[in-house]
């Protein structure tokens, strides 16, 4: 299934945050979204899930298959959210509930969306923990988030996002809070899951190195507009837009090249 964002505009309190964003996510592909903070990357991700802040005005279209997510009644949107479109947030220390076990957080939405029984949900949760390579998934099921390291927590957050077999995964800066060595593992995991499960992934990141490692297509945003979009090699090696070039030039490595 593809997710098609067309002419998406968002304004909050009269201020235009997004000014007509067009993006297309395809199954089995990672679409990278780059840009400075404040350029509207995160808002684009949140708009897909209908998680925009209160009072935001949205127009345009976000098509998931045949449906437009922006006009969907709340009840149906709730079925899409977490079920067909899932999200991984930046900071795994705050996105997991500190007082619920990993198992509880992994099975709650599965039981709701997939109508699974307790035992079935548990079996699937353990399988998922194994898939994201948490050592000792059986024991990990009953543990709390603080008993895991940052990288492990982000893997768990990814497992939670994948629990209901979504078609679309939105990853908002999934590795920014992690060390480079741990980041490498999470990126490999994301890429592997995308290839294996045919997920359409929107990877929001400001790190062009991360972008280059996993994204198939890259879009660059500035002031609420997509200024450049294209295959990874083209955007990062022969940037057409002056802003993309300036982003690449501002990298610490640029002057040493």
């Amino acid at each position, binding site marked *: 299934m593809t997710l098609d964002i067309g002419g998406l505009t968002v304004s909050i309190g009269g201020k235009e945050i997004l000014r007509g964003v067009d993006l297309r996510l395809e199954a089995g592909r990672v679409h990278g979204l780059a840009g*400075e*903070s404040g350029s509207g990357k995160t808002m684009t991700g949140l708009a897909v899930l209908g998680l925009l802040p209160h009072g935001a005005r949205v127009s345009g279209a976000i098509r998931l298959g045949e449906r437009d997510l922006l006009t969907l009644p709340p009840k149906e949107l709730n079925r899409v959210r977490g079920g067909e479109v899932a999200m991984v947030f930046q900071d795994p220390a705050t996105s997991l509930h500190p007082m619920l076990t990993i198992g509880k957080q992994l099975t709650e939405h599965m039981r709701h969306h997939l109508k699974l029984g307790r035992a079935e949900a548990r079996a699937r949760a353990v399988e998922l923990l194994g898939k994201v390579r948490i050592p000792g998934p059986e024991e990990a099921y009953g543990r709390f988030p603080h008993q895991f*390291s*940052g*990288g*492990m927590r982000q893997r768990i957050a990814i497992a939670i996002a994948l629990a209901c077999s979504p078609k679309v995964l939105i990853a908002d800066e999934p590795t920014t809070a992690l*060390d*480079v*060595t*741990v*980041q*490498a*593992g999470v*990126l*490999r995991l994301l*890429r592997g899951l995308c290839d294996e499960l045919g997920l359409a992934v929107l990877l929001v990141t*400001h*790190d*062009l*190195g*991360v*972008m*280059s*490692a*996993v*994204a*198939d297509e890259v879009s660059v945003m500035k002031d609420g507009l997509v200024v450049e979009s294209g295959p*990874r*090699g*083209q*955007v*990062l*090696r022969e940037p057409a837009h002056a802003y993309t070039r300036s*982003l*690449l030039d*501002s*990298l*610490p*490595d640029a*002057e*040493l090249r």
Partner: protein
Amino acid sequence: MTLLSIDDLVVEHRSPGRPVVRAVAGASLTVGPGEVVGLVGESGCGKSTLARAVCGLNPITEGSITFDGEPVTPLGLRRRRLTGIQMVFQDPYASLNPRRRVGDQIADGLRTVRDTATSPADLLERVGLPREFAGRHPHEFSGGQRQRVAIARALAARPRLLIGDEPISALDASAQAQVARLMRDLAVESGAGLLFISHDLSVVRLIADRIVVMYLGRIVEVGDTAEVWADPRHPYTRALLGAVPKPDGLGVLPAELPGDVPDPANPPGGCRFHPRCPLVMDVCREKDPGFGPVACWLHEPK
């Protein structure tokens, strides 16, 4: 000539009901005047504890820290004489007082060295902010600007050693390289040493003269930045450098270092890196490589 020398430093964190954590377990390091030393390592390796110990914010368990020939004493309630070391903290949202004007906060630093000739506005100018900003409060600034204010405040006390504890990790990607370079320029300009702590290797490479790599409380490799970058010798340094994704558009997934950082309360015996090392040998499991500049049995000094 060295400005700061750290010898076999051990720092332990004790908390009731928990095992003692050796955050820094025998680290030696020197910083010379006008020299920029980059300290890198994964989170939890003890680099921040080391920085805090140098400032006197953490008591030392064993070993010594000497600054300009005098030992560094723990910071207490009494007036501090040792204002030659100044620190820039990680989060400028937390390190600046939200209720005071930034000019007043910078003036505190000037007062410690009885400097009446310089005004806070001069310092703001040096860090690239307009002079009139001295009358503003921290909430009126962006993250990058706040960190510049924090740098101005640290510089006001005329430090001979500036310490940056992850000063750029809370900033936007576009501001990171700028702020890092600013710190370097200002420190070198005034002849002060700079100990720059970061987990971002690409930025450290840009500004540091020497790189110090830390793993689980130990320093595993020390060397010239260019040399370490071109030819990393310790397997851990190699893994760290290999994990940095390059923006070359080729789609190469970075190499993964298996496993997690072990619990510092219960470090593995022998070489501390051996459970994760791809080149592990029998000797690594038994004996700790207590030598430098590369603490690895593959690079034992003859």
